[in-house]
């Protein structure tokens, strides 16, 4: 790739957060006479929310990009975080161990979900609903319906430290980058994204690959759960398939990340998209819109982007078609003249 092209790609990637910040800054100044970022605490909040959104979007991307929408991810997040947290608290261990336990449980729940998928061959969304109902019950029973409450628990402070959250997110982004670019998993992912049938015929074990994707998604989504609960201090053990909303809320970050990633890399794209959308949402908060209005604005922007995604090649295709027609007419005229 030429240097100028690389520079353009970097500009393209940076343009999303910079332009979003600029737009929100202007709107905030005009409507509320306030800045999007005024103090270090604003930066801390944006870092935390970016981290949660990015890690969740990474988790979603493992399966969704291959056509599997795992609707049990929210339940895995809840189960892994609550059980990991309860175990760490029972053993009197620090927040770091909570994170480790949550990742281990998330990984295990992911593997079990993946094994269920390849064994039962039920469509992923249908399986996801069923597995979500099962995984939701596990933390409910283990916590006696109480969920996880970290309020006032000693040793959890590290989880709310900005440096720790940045470290976790950067490590995750690097890990995903390495996995997707320098390992068998990344190679297989690209092949399966192209065509599952061709990938299978070319010798890729698509079943093992699916289990690996489920397992990684489960582990990642639990990291997001830990980052979330460390600040809000509590996570309820909710039943009735209500756990997935927090995961699907980050679908926009994943899809926008995939688009941005076309010019760089998927992991860089998702991280940039999560950062962009966090600034956007934070700006809306500064403008003091109510929760329902915020939701409507977010969804309108999301739908607008999906419309753009679905139609962005139309102009080029029409242009190419017109060129073909012109060429055909020209050839016809030439042959008639001859």
């Amino acid at each position, binding site marked *: 790739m030429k240097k100028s092209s690389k520079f353009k790609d970097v500009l393209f990637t940076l343009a999303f957060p910079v332009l979003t910040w600029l737009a929100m800054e202007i709107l905030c100044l005009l409507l509320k006479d306030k800045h999007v970022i005024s103090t270090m*605490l604003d930066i801390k909040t944006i870092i935390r929310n970016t981290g949660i959104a990015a890690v969740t979007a990474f988790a979603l991307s493992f399966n969704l990009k291959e056509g599997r929408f795992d609707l049990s991810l929210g339940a895995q997040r809840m189960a892994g975080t609550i059980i990991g947290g309860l175990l760490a608290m029972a053993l009197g261990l620090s927040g770091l161990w909570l994170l480790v336990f949550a990742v281990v449980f998330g990984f295990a729940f992911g593997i079990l979900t993946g094994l269920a998928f390849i064994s039962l061959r039920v469509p992923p969304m249908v399986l996801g609903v069923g597995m979500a109902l099962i995984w939701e019950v596990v933390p*409910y029973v283990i916590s006696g319906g109480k969920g996880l409450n970290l309020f*006032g628990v000693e040793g959890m402070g590290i989880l709310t430290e900005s440096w720790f959250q940045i470290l976790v997110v950067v490590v995750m982004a690097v890990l995903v980058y390495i996995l997707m670019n320098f390992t068998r998993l990344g190679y297989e992912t690209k092949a399966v994204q192209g065509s599952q049938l061709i990938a299978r015929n070319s010798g890729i074990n698509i079943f093992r690959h699916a289990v690996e994707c489920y397992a990684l998604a489960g582990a990642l989504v639990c990291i997001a759960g830990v980052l979330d609960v460390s600040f*809000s201090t509590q996570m309820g053990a909710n039943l009735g398939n209500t756990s997935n909303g927090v995961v699907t809320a980050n679908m926009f970050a994943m899809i926008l990340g995939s688009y941005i990633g076309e010019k760089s890399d998927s992991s860089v794209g998702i991280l940039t998209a999560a950062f962009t959308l966090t600034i956007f949402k934070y700006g809306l908060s500064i403008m*003091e819109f109510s929760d329902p*209005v915020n939701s409507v604005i977010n969804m309108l922007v999301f739908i607008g982007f999906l419309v753009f995604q679905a139609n962005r090649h139309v102009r080029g295709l029409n242009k190419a078609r017109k060129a073909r027609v012109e060429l055909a007419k020209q050839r016809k005229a030439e042959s008639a003249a001859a």
Partner: protein
Amino acid sequence: MKRLIALILVVVMAMSFVACGNADKPADNSSNTSSEGTVDVSKHHKIGVATVHSGENWEIAKTYLETVIAPTYNFEFVISETLSDANGLIAFMEQCYAAGCDGFINLVTSNDAISQGAHKADELGMWFVTQNSAWVEDVAELPKNIGHCGADPVAVGTAYKEAFSEYLSDGQPHSVILFEGAAVGGDKGQGAASHFYSAVGVLEAFQEAYGLTYDKPIADLVNQQDPGEVNTGNPDVHIYLYPGRNPNDAVTALLPVLQTGNYDIFAAVFSFAAFTNAISDVETSLGKDIKVIGTAQIEKQTKTGFETQDPTGDTVLNSAILNDLSLACAINCIELKQAFDGHADAMKDNGKTVLIGVRSWAVNGPETYAKMEKLNTSPELYILTAEDLLHYAEAGITWQDLDNLLADLASVDTLLERKGLN
């Protein structure tokens, strides 16, 4: 391998059903004696309980239902998982009817759920009581609908007013951020009445303390959908109202407001703990103490709030407006017991249901809470013991008696005296 995996999944699924039902063995007592007479408890009754709650506070109430009320009245409870709407309620009611329930306690508080539930109960022939804070008129005369009992919304507002008055009486200008939850429409049966009156209580306390001249009636201010600062007419007193049902969204949205440094009190009508990390961050950043007042329950989290220090050396929680689910559950069960014994009319006012309000308690400081926290920790320390339950199940007890009982328990001092904790 596939069979083994399928078998493991089936076992996990089967074990998970353990949490979906709660079939306690029926008690074998045939009669219980109160201090003034005998209440017949020979007939076994099965009661469905549709809950919207989860967490420690609900577990305390469940323990009370199962270990105190069930053996006292010869009741058996079938308790739902956490429900959220009318559809879930109706489906659960039908399951309970099939399981032989003849009474039902509904904790799903939306007006449509109460209305549909009361009609369904009438159709199925089950006695029906609701635990909520608002009276629903359109089903008030249904024969099987006995009534409502829940946190008295006006009393919650009074408790907030009482709690705030203590802080505002020092002659200094104070400012507050209020997370008012589902207050919008709470006076019209659309939101949560207790949240609405909590916000009204706070605004009234400020108005009285500083002679504020709001630019709108207080009810209109509370019913505003958008968050924002109230025009107080006093440049030194700021009041910021944030309506919203999701504390996590509220934390993010309120951080920039907290950081202005204009506010020295934060109040939350629920989930105060979700805001404590954010408040601690702001306290550290600004070097300023922010008092926290919140609606809470008698549970470990509240104790932690009163015992944990914030970065300025003050306690994380400064005042709590306490509600008690167990007490409301007890009143609901007394109403059902009266109905089973043929006295449903005594629980109504001229054939119409009534709302019996459990008064909230304003607890300022850890010393008082240290006494309150002993409540609900043993059978004799529940606010209503087995003996009280039998007394209020006697013939001749009316809804006014229950309301008077709750009015008597409105004062923290009276309550603590009654339980021998003062």
